[in-house]
């Protein structure tokens, strides 16, 4: 890890055609340094070292999808068609894009995010040169629960486990998704959007890209809304923009989307709660107010299992 970062920065520098006397504009430096990804920037080039153990064929297929003309204007295109190896990690190079402002909730690009997802979901997976693996949403939720189980006991773990137990097998990554496969991002949140110099929003981070249930990509904003972190107006703007752009995950007629969103939104709420508890334990601190919100939602979820029956009336 320690040797990786300078080498990664060197790759970004090299690609940015850095010379000893070049006046390439700052800032450059480390954009992320987590166990699952290290990201360094130099000028307009970003180098990403993917998680240890990332399978090369899957990453190459995902990279080819991001580079494919059918997804131009939806996914940020890489600078190189294949990953390279560096200190036993696979590395990819990307153009730099400006992230969403973390300090300005009112400026969050909900409509752009929704339109990008709709476009991604509408793209037939068959246009891509290599078949994509399944999107990794359920796998990541299952991994978050596995990490919680591997950690020391915590009083909040039991409601999270109960909420997880009532989910169908596909949402727990124990069976394939039963529906028709759509292209999905697999890990949508506001850190997954960047703005190009041409003022165009694009989706980034292809590590979880693949085929599956497109409702999964809407389910994180849905969970934030259900847990009271998003205003009803923000959620409605996002959902309406997705529908207006022809997104196939929810009924186009404007009827209640929750029968579709319920299971993935539950899974992502469990994932968020499980990771929050694991992180709080590692830092030897209590859950904060927002993290408690997700555990509380898990408590209520366990009491009201997902309803797969047809919608009733009064």
């Amino acid at each position, binding site marked *: 890890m320690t040797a990786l970062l300078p080498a990664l920065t060197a790759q970004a520098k090299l690609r940015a055609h850095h010379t000893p006397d070049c006046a390439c504009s700052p800032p450059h430096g480390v954009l992320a340094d987590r166990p699952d990804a290290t990201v360094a920037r130099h000028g307009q080039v970003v180098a990403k070292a993917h998680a240890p153990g990332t399978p090369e064929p899957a990453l190459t297929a995902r990279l080819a999808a991001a580079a494919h003309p059918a997804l131009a204007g939806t996914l940020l295109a890489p600078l190189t068609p294949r990953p390279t190896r560096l200190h036993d990690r696979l590395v990819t190079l990307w153009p730099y894009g400006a992230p*969403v402002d973390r300090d300005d909730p009112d400026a969050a690009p909900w409509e752009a995010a929704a339109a990008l997802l709709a476009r991604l979901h509408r793209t037939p997976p068959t246009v891509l040169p290599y078949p994509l693996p399944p999107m990794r949403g359920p796998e990541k939720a299952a991994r978050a629960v596995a990490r919680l189980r591997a950690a020391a006991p915590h009083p909040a773990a039991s409601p999270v486990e109960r909420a997880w137990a009532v989910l169908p097998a596909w949402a727990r990554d124990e069976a394939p998704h039963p529906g028709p496969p759509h292209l999905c991002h697999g890990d949508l949140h*506001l850190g997954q959007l960047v703005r190009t110099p041409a003022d165009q929003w694009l989706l980034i981070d292809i590590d979880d890209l693949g085929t599956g249930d497109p409702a999964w990509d809407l389910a994180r904003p849905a969970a934030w809304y259900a847990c009271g972190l998003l205003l*009803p107006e923000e959620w409605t703007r996002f959902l309406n923009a997705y529908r207006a752009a022809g997104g196939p995950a929810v009924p186009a007629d404007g009827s209640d989307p*929750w029968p579709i969103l319920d299971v993935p939104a539950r899974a992502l709420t469990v994932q968020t709660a499980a990771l929050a508890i694991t992180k709080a334990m590692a830092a030897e601190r209590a859950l904060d107010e927002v993290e408690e919100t997700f555990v509380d939602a898990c408590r209520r979820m366990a009491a009201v299992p997902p309803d797969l029956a047809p919608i009733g009336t*009064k």
Partner: protein
Amino acid sequence: MQCPKCHAPMHTYNRNGVQIEQCSGCRGIFLDYGELEALTRLENQWSGHQAPPAPPAAPAYPAAPAPAWGAPHGGHGSHHGHHGHKRHKSFGHMLFSS
């Protein structure tokens, strides 16, 4: 009766002679025809005004549906005071990570 939105059982409460059905899951409130007017009349009795004429029958649904397990008040109109607090606390970190 089951909630038309989340299907959880609804419980009937009596407030000043007005029957109100509240969902045990999503906390949504169902008002039968005339119940909203009855409530408005009661409110106006307190402030001394006359009740407005009854509009056509329409059940009082929340503006945006929310799941049965949602936070209390989640999706039931705009509670800026309630939501805004957590929204600002959570925005920078919770909405930007996996």
